[in-house]
């Protein structure tokens, strides 16, 4: 089994020098950032090594698309694990969005198959699940779409015996996936001990051959590459809101504190800030696009996923500005009552696509069922939840429909755009974070029949349910042809029972102020349990780095710059000083309560509520108060 490893040279967003910011334009001078190999691609390298190990005939080919300087990452790869290297570089490819990039890479893969793998179809394309600069995770599925192959996304582990098997967390839980058709594409998460560069291999890499191919060398049509071939364009870049320092209300009464926290908790959305949307007025002008506002409805158990309902609400609001209607696409084995539910939440039409092969989500059958419908009706907007399913499916549908896609939007609005000779009326403006969250970008779709976007759950609100609302249901039985899933999926654990601290809605974290491990266990878990009961959401115990170093718990529970970044609805910091390295990992929390014996502790600058006192006294008082709340 050969491997083609896709790698990308990206800016090092973890170390941005101050003079790289152009604060007036709100942009980043990329040239002043160090360039590194995309960290997730390093995990892809380890995967590829494990897949090809033990087979001396298996080839590894590293492929990257970029400016001439990108050859550095190929040398970097070779210094970690041997392989051939291909640099796809051409001026005409510059400024490519994911669609144009996927097209160019697909052409290069075709040539690699022909010239470097001797025409063999026994290979895997392996790559990191996303890059740290664009971080859309769209190129791999779109590449798979162009090549017409299967994809296995978010792999966490791989075995080659008894057969090639990938373990991943899918839409339904942990699964083992065995590809049945090759070539296939795999994207990997940060799950390996990445390979180091060996000095001697690095030296040898200097004289290694790097195949350098242009657009013409891979038969890539120039108008499908680079800016010309892109279906999205960045309209504006700006800085996200800066320092999140808060005004802390110091409390002395535990019962009062719990009351206030509870009240604030009920109001919090638990996701990125909901922006105030301005109204849009068409004022009798002719909008640039016509057509409906569609959403993809995802199932959850017997019902509909909350994010799909949130999207119906948003789609309705946006469509109203242009006098258009909202439709929901509902794929599955049998729609049952769900179509009526979607109408009750605001859908004017429901396309219920029913087929036995759609009982469980798999990218190829779902794409085969949905894409033709979208191509036929050409809605002007289509929205997907940025869920495990949405992130795998939306890129393929967008590519199949020649449409631009913007991932992980935190804001959607209808607006106008006028520049040069171009004047656009009533288009969808899509805003999302980029460069690891260091900047925000507003994006517009161009040259596409449909403007597509994915949105994270919790960004928009679930609309009110109105059983009196009426709508049409169109039942469709698609012809799925031979697009059955080319993978065999075995569920390992159908429900992810262990909530990681990243998913918890409530976190109680302990720091250096806690004297010993028995205090750590004895104080924090009861508080977590009490808050879970009082507020009705999962609560987890976590720790600062000092607490981990002191041996109170393990690195899995560490919050901070070198641990995990969390954004729960409630974060309780117990005995944590609030060093900047810790705060950077939790400052996006909705509500922060800090308990510390030092009134000058820095954590109070980042807390909504604070209590000064001995932890051994204050925490049990709070636990009692949660029971009485």
């Amino acid at each position, binding site marked *: 089994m050969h491997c083609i490893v896709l790698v990308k040279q990206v800016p090092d967003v973890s170390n941005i020098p101050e*003079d790289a910011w152009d604060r007036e334009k709100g942009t980043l001078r990329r040239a002043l950032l160090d360039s590194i190999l995309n960290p997730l691609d390093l995990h892809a390298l380890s995967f590829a090594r494990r897949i090809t190990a033990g087979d001396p005939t298996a080839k590894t080919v590293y492929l990257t698309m970029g400016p001439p300087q990108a050859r550095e990452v190929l040398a970097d790869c070779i210094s970690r694990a041997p392989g051939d290297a291909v640099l796809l570089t051409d001026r005409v490819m510059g400024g490519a969005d994911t669609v144009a990039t996927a097209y160019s890479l697909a052409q290069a893969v075709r040539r690699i198959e022909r010239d470097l793998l001797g025409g063999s179809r026994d290979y895997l394309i392996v790559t990191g699940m996303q890059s740290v600069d664009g971080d859309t995770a769209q190129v791999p599925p779109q590449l798979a779409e162009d090549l017409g192959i299967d994809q296995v996304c978010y792999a966490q582990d791989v075995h080659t015996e008894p057969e090639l098997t990938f373990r991943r967390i899918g839409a339904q839980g942990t699964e083992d996936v065995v590809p049945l058709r090759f070539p296939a594409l795999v994207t990997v998460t940060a799950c*390996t*001990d990445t390979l*180091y560069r060996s000095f*001697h291999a690095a*030296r040898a890499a200097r004289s290694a051959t790097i195949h350098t191919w242009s657009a013409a060398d891979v038969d890539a049509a120039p108008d499908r590459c680079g800016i010309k071939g892109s279906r999205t364009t960045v309209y504006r870049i700006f800085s996200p809101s800066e320092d999140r320092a808060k005004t802390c209300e110091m409390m002395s009464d535990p019962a009062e504190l719990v009351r206030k926290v509870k009240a604030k908790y009920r109001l919090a959305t638990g996701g990125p800030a909901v922006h105030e949307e301005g109204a849009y007025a068409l004022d009798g002008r002719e909008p640039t696009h016509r057509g409906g506002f569609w959403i993809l409805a995802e199932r959850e158990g017997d019902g509909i996923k909350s994010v799909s309902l949130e999207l119906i609400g948003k789609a309705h609001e946006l469509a109203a500005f242009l006098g258009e209607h909202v439709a929901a696409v509902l794929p599955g084995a049998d729609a049952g009552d769900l179509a009526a539910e979607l109408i009750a939440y605001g859908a004017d039409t429901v396309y219920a696509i029913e087929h036995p092969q759609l009982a469980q989500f798999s990218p190829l059958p779902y794409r085969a069922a949905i894409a033709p419908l979208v191509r036929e009706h050409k809605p002007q907007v289509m929205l997907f939840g940025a869920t495990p399913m949405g992130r795998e499916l939306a890129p393929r549908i967008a590519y199949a429909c020649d449409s631009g896609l913007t991932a992980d939007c935190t804001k959607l609005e209808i607006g106008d755009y006028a520049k040069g000779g171009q004047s656009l009326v009533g288009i969808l403006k899509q805003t999302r974070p980029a460069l690891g969250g260091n900047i925000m970008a507003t994006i517009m779709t161009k040259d596409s029949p449909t403007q597509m976007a994915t949105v994270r759950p919790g960004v928009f609100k679930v609309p009110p349910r109105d059983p009196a609302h009426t709508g049409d249901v169109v039942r469709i039985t698609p012809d799925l042809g031979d697009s059955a899933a080319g993978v065999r999926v075995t569920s390992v654990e159908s429900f992810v029972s262990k909530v990681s601290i990243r998913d918890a809605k409530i976190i109680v974290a302990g720091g250096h102020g806690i004297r010993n491990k028995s205090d750590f266990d004895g104080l924090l878990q009861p508080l977590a349990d009490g808050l879970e009961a009082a507020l009705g959401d999962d609560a987890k115990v976590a720790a600062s*780095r000092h607490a981990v*170093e002191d041996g109170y718990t393990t690195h899995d529970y560490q919050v901070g*710059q070198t641990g995990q970044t969390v954004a729960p609805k409630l974060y309780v910091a117990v005995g944590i000083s609030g060093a*900047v390295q810790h705060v950077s990992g939790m400052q996006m929390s909705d509500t922060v309560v800090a308990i510390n014996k030092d009134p000058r502790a820095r954590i109070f600058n980042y807390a909504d509520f604070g209590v000064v006192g001995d932890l051994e006294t204050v925490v049990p008082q709070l636990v009692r108060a949660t029971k009485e709340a």
Partner: protein
Amino acid sequence: MDGIDILVVGAGPAGLAAGLRAKQAATQAGRDVSVVVLDKAPAAGNHALSGAAFEAACLDDLVPGWREMRTPFVTGLVPVERDDMFFLRAKAANRIPPMVVPSRMHHAGDVIISISRLVSFLAEQAEAAGVEVYHGYSARTLIVENGAVKGVRLGDVGLAHDGSPKGNHIDSEEIRAGITILADGTRGVISTQFAEHFGGGSVSRVYSLGMKAIVQFPEASPFGTNRVMHTLGYPMRPDVFGGGFLYAMGEKTVAVGLILGLDWKYGDLNPQREFETFRAHPFISRLLKGGVTVATGAKTIPEGGYNAIGALSAPGGMVVGDGAGLVNMEKIKGIHYAIKSGMAAADTALEALRSDGSVGALDGYRQRLEGNGVLEDLRHARNYRQVFKYGLFVGTPLSLVSSMIPANLGIHRDGAATRKGARLNRPDPGRMDGATFVALTGTLHREDEPSHIEITDPSRCITCEADYANACTHFCPGQVYRWSGSEVVLSPSNCLHCMTCTVKCPADVIRWAAPEGGEGPRYKQL
């Protein structure tokens, strides 16, 4: 794989000057000489820190035409037009008349530079000339066989916290070369081993610790541009050697720093707190009003001077730059000596590499250092730092005539200077805290790596609590050391590679080895 003719350990100004000069001269003479430069930092300049008021003439020979190059280093140069010295008291500042300041300490003709940017520039030049420059590789051991230097051994990578190999473990690689030039800087691991093998100087090596911050202003800074300022006095007591500096890095950027002699006697002296105390002085804070600190760093400076210089060469090896102790304390300068010594080592190496592959003697190196003025300058300054062991009031007048003192003054080891029970009790100025200082250095290490710092005899820490206030918990600018009540707990991933702990532990029980390559601070404009 071809062998390596010249291996340079350390890609600072000395190492890169050596590599670049060697390759240039070889190319000119039509010789095929392989030159490899190694560095533990993630990228060029990341571990370089200095003031710096630089005597740029040494670059004219090394990189002809450099002044016309359109590169950030060159376009960022700030010529010195104004040069002041001030004596600070608790609330006041008095200008020291220029006439009283020795001429060697005047900075007219210097340019203010960022050493990280200089190193980045030199690395580009070296690579363009065909030098192989590799970042992210840590040398652990000097290879000496039959009394000759043969190369270095790198550290293991991919070990778990308990030292056991993980799946991605690579065994320590050996790198052998015809000639090895040691350029690993202040308290460099390899050059320290070289001194142990081949001899140190006649007096102890002593060091200062420099703390530095880059302050950015939205408009023109109150300090002004094209200007350098040095200060004496506050916050240091007369028995602590040191001084502060402000250098204009541009119209809207000022570098501010404090240098402290590591022979201070107070167990609880915290240099980062002293630095913030300095910055809080009304005179200084007025000059920095409206600015935001965007980067910080700390590094030691070798100050032993001429008599602390040990063996400069041995069969197969030479030491250059800070690692050789080539810093002139009268001028507080070392960068141009580093570059000149690198060039001298390169010339010596090319002479010694014979066409049959054997290597001749390297004694010509010392002669070249005489010929280019480096050793002469250092001889003049040889007692300068040492007279300050008598304190500021005796030291200052003595320093004016230090070059004429016939004896070679010794000085105690820095760690031995700490006095039992001596406490500074400096109040917290309530400004930047230690954790933020560390965060702004960009330092990163793999947290489950085996600790690169070892306390060889933890029993000494128990008495250190009463005697020296567990000095390491105060003197480390990286906040690596914490007292748990019964033992010192380490956070090695905070380490700034400043090397203070290797000299300042009163019991001398701290051992520092280079962590995995590609770690440590990420200075870009320090």
